[in-house]
């Protein structure tokens, strides 16, 4: 009796070093411009070629400007990094979806939407949110640049085998509660290090009831509780999502693939190193109040008091609230905000734009709020326009930007100024994440929409 994780992992073991790590075969690697240049240099220094070029897809996303992509990147250092990726892909013969390419966008959005990420695969990228792709029923995890070099050179990485954890969600999410809220709820319960050393499988009624895009959001955030990765057993929802996508198997190959994929689930009675149950009906729309994603709470609750925090954590807790300009014990509801960011590999997909648009339809953006709506890819942008969401957004006072990571980590020009509050659908509220001194409140697309319209933290169900 095996877990889903065991099945995929074991099928990819090339060798195991005695008393050491596993040499794991990687089906697909994604590379972006920030964490790959030193890996390509390493290859050159060793006089090596890329071992399996067809299994590697390169997409610049972190530095990409979200306006005027038609022109060269203005920031010379960003430009150099993006150009370096292009040069490396040419030199080593790799697929490259350059800025402006119809398949350009955030890697974790582009991979699934093109059928590059499939059930049963092992996938890596020099990016911690590679966990996203696990939603398709795969083992996907982030690696460092030395490991990117290993995969370029040998299509393998060394990994110690993680422990397994299953999180079961009983019941369904209530109306107005999104998969992002579920993820923020779990991270708050688990804390940011609570799943370190584990690979997490999400299961239960609430997960089964989710669309593929909602599942991608949940798995995306696995890393924020320290997990090596997150995964969901593939089912009809998964197969329907993949079918017909460009790089998905076709015809007889498709039928054979689906047959194989159906076996990708944890066997009845398989044991996990840890198993935790949650009641999905307990979950409310969430916001974060601090400077790590574990510092989240239901939108109607109050920030914890200092006394409720255990002693070793009080210095960090106080430092965090000081940075945010919040007081222990107070409510978040009604707090004025300055920026709203809809986008990132967490919430930059079409369903996120549909939810946001649904809320703002017929309403107006608050005057003082600056809103950045950034599709996760050009394909998402195209779909937004095909559905006419852009017109509704324009009428409500919003404008759409061009795809990229954008304000998620502010490597381009989309920086939140020091001291300003941003309600952000991204994944990290670390100090300075959205620009030096920026104050990030993480939330789902509905809470972001309500904040954009009301200019303050508002329960979207109110």
């Amino acid at each position, binding site marked *: 009796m095996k877990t889903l994780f065991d099945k995929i992992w074991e099928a990819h073991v090339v060798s195991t070093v*005695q008393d*050491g790590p596993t040499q794991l075969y990687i089906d697909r690697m994604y590379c972006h411009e920030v964490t790959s240049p030193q890996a390509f240099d390493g290859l050159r220094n060793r006089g090596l070629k890329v071992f399996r070029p067809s299994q590697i897809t390169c997409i610049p996303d972190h530095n990409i400007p979200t306006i005027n992509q038609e022109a060269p990147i203005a920031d010379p250092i960003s430009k150099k990094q993006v150009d370096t990726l292009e040069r490396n892909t040419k030199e080593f013969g790799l697929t490259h979806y350059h800025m402006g390419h119809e398949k350009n966008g955030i890697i974790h959005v582009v991979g699934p939407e093109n059928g590059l990420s499939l059930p049963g695969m092992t996938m890596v990228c020099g990016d911690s949110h590679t966990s996203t792709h696990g939603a398709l029923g795969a083992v996907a995890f982030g690696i460092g640049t030395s490991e990117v070099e290993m995969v370029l050179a040998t299509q393998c990485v060394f990994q110690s085998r993680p422990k397994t954890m299953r999180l079961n969600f009983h019941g369904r999410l209530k109306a107005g509660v999104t998969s992002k809220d579920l993820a923020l709820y779990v991270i708050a319960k688990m804390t940011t290090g609570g799943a370190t050393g584990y690979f997490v499988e999400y299961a239960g009624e609430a997960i089964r009831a989710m669309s593929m895009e909602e599942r991608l959001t949940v798995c995306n955030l696995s890393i924020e509780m320290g997990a090596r990765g997150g995964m969901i057993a593939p089912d009809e929802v998964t197969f329907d999502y993949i079918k017909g996508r460009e790089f998905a198997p076709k015809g007889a190959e498709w039928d054979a693939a689906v047959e194989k994929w159906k076996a990708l689930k944890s066997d009845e009675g398989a044991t996990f190193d840890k198993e935790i149950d949650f009641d999905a009906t307990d979950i409310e729309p969430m916001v974060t109040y601090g400077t790590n994603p574990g510092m989240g709470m239901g939108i109607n609750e109050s920030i914890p008091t200092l006394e409720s925090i255990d002693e070793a954590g009080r210095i960090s807790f106080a430092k965090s609230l000081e940075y945010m300009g919040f007081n222990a014990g107070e409510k978040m509801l009604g707090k004025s905000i300055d920026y709203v960011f809809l986008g990132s590999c967490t919430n930059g997909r079409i369903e996120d734009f549909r939810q946001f648009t649904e809320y703002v339809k017929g309403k107006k953006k608050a005057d003082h709020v600056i809103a950045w709506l950034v599709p996760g890819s050009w394909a998402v942008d195209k779909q937004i326009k095909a559905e006419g969401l852009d017109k509704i957004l324009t009428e409500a006072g919003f404008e759409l930007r061009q795809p990229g990571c954008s304000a998620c980590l502010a490597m381009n020009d989309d920086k939140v100024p020091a001291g300003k509050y941003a309600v952000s659908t991204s994944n990290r509220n670390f100090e300075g994440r959205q620009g030096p001194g920026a104050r990030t409140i993480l939330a789902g697309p509905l809470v972001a929409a309500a904040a954009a319209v009301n200019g303050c933290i508002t329960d979207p169900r109110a």
Partner: protein
Amino acid sequence: MGELEGANMEKFITLTSTVVPLPIENVDTDQIIPARFLKATSKDGFGDNLFRDWRYDKNDQPIASFVLNNPTYNGEILVAGKNFGSGSSREHAAWAIAGYGFKVVVSSFFADIFKNNAMNNFVLPVVVSEEFLAEIFDGVNANPAITLTINLEEQIITNNSNGKSESFQINPYKKECFVKGLDDIDYLISKKDMIERYEIARV
């Protein structure tokens, strides 16, 4: 083990050093090296921007209260609060720590990817108990000159201010890499025929 010697990897067996204390929990990689410094295309120079936004103010002036700016504290061992290195997979965090001159980071808990990245750059993450960690912080508070000794061969860390020791874990393969200065890539490359056999077998 691989027969090839790693290129410019510094070997590491025992180390005795004063410490730099950072008693903050959940230090994430965005603090270790902020995203705006990730635009370099080489591994050099990251040490200058280690903990940039805690270390320098808006006008690039050193913030006196931050420990790296306090001449009382120095050494090759960084001692940090629980859950060090959470967040992004950026190896730039490990390059920054190594570039600054740290050879060891001691904490009661590390994030997974950071731990791998650190080891791949010959920075040793040493996990100690909460109690042992608290005693280091107390010790260095009372006397900044206290030292720790890390004996990698024996897998023992000693707090020389109170003589207490703890053993720490490292997998035997990684330990050999550290001791011999070997790197994973050389080892994997030596296994290429095995990889090709695996590919053929799975089709």
